[in-house]
């Protein structure tokens, strides 16, 4: 085996990966084409989804995905960033390894297991305790009206938050650890408090990377299927109340795929898949660019010194 043969083999494997991406996009597009042809833009603005009469509007699903994902980032954001900062800046060395393992395990728990936990533990807890309390005390807000249901938008948001926490924490931590010590030492020498070192020296430097970490968490939440399906209630409603059952792009595909007998129904489901594909593509590219840009800046800085 010569040098070139070995290089060639790894290059072929890599080329295969690139082709796979194109093939995937092409195949999904092809399968969705019937629906794209028929519904066009109507598909994403119509809220009418009726397989029997072959009318397909995906708005309720898009709404469910967008809202549950936003809730997830809202809930997960502060906690993840806090934990990432603690892990990268403050944790004692031995605790750090243990905590990093905790984050790894949290990330490795399958979404189906989260779903199981969510539907049998989280949802009843929300229905019996949290949601009645929110309704009583904050019921004047449109978000907290209606009867507590448990399997609803709020549960989906919390579920997704729990699942994106390890993603955001792990990436943000890695980003924070690439911040050179030169950003910290002058501040320490000036007598800054530990938090000031982080706020003035570290966070502004790592800002793009942290935003990238958020965006990756967002990408994970958008594509998440099982846990959402099991707690969101699976009703295509558009309601301001977080206590209302809803539906999401992924959950409708899983729920209806097996029953989709007509070509157009199947194609419409895959059309939702196509939207999902495009959306996650956009989000991930954005996230990677942000993270790259930061590590690139660090590299450049190191070369200059």
């Amino acid at each position, binding site marked *: 085996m010569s040098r070139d043969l070995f*290089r060639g083999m*790894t290059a072929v494997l890599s080329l295969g*990966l690139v082709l796979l991406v194109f093939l995937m996009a092409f195949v999904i597009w092809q399968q969705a084409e019937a629906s794209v042809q028929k519904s066009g833009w109507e598909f994403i603005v119509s809220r009418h989804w009726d397989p029997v009469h072959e009318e397909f509007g995906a708005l309720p699903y898009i709404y469910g995905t967008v809202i549950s994902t936003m809730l997830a980032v809202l809930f997960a954001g502060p906690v993840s960033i806090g934990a990432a900062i603690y892990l990268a800046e403050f944790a004692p060395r031995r605790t750090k390894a243990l905590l990093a393992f905790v984050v790894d395990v949290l990330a490795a728990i399958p979404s189906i297991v989260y779903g199981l936990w969510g539907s049998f533990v989280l949802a009843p807890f929300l229905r019996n305790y949290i949601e009645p309390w929110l309704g009583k005390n904050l019921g004047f807000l449109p978000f907290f009206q209606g009867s507590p249901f448990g399997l609803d938008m709020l549960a989906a948001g919390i579920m997704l938050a729990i699942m994106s926490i390890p993603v955001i924490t792990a990436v943000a931590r890695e980003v924070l650890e690439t911040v050179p010590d030169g950003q910290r030492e002058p501040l320490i020498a000036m007598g800054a408090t530990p*938090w000031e070192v982080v706020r003035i020296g570290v966070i502004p430097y790592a800002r793009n990377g942290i935003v990238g970490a958020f965006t990756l968490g967002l990408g994970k939440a958008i*594509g998440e299927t099982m846990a959402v399906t099991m707690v969101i209630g699976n009703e295509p409603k558009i309601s301001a109340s977080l206590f209302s059952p809803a539906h999401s792009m992924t959950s409708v595909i899983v729920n209806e795929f097996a029953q989709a007998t007509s070509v157009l129904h199947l194609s419409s489901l895959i059309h939702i898949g196509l939207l999902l594909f495009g959306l996650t593509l956009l989000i991930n590219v954005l996230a990677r660019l942000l993270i790259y840009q930061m590590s690139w800046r660090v590299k450049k800085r190191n070369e200059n010194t």
Partner: protein
Amino acid sequence: MKILENHRLIWSRLMVGFCGLSTLLISGLLLLVLGYITLHGLPGANLNFFTRLPAPVGMEGGGLAQAVAGSFILIGLACLIGIPWGIGAGIFLSEVGKDSWWGEGVRFAVDVLSGVPSIITGIFVYSILVVKLQSFSALAGGVALGIIMVPLVARNTEGILQLVPQGLREAALALGLPFWKVILKIILPTAARGIGIGVTLAVAGVAGETAPLFFTSLSNNYWSLGLLEPIASLPMEIFRYATAPFAAWHELAWTGALVLITIVVSGMLLARILLPGYNFRR
């Protein structure tokens, strides 16, 4: 001045405290999830679970043996695709096409792939395999899980290889070893631990994947070892049993979840303990 100083210090303590609390919350969350699963799952974790097929509704003593076996078959198939492909691409990214535009393109493709929701991969494999073979099959499930593994393994392999000091490559080349031996016999073994841990994380990731299996391997109530037949798997059975309206089935789902998590976490732990080699510090 004194008051200002105190104010700064208190604020700092508060914020550091918040960060510590967040970490605590995350750890608590893990305990909460693991605790419930152990609590509900442990009573059902007996020999029946691993040796019996599911019992009809209302009958006692059914198990999910076919699902445990099926999961291992699916994971095995996924590894056959995901590990060589992922490690090969990782080697390309780190050692061959590192600074070329072509390497950047591949890296980009890896990023895109790792961001594709698994449900999409499921639909993709459904369209190219299930439709063509006119049947849901273990093969399709393995291919879908394998595709999901590839970018995970590739990215990690690249990252770990980057941590191996350049001096080792030079030293090996200077001994008059051909490039491929330098990489396969010296650099790869040096990075074996990190690559192995990455592979187990990827395996752990796909072991619990459920969404793609809806479109590929589906499920099966009986033993099925044929690669071209639908096959049962733990995640799919957990879903079916959890969403069914029978309390006894819910129990089986909890136990399934416990078994699944045990497989995943013990795999991760074993990799850390058993794999030889070096922890390179980032």
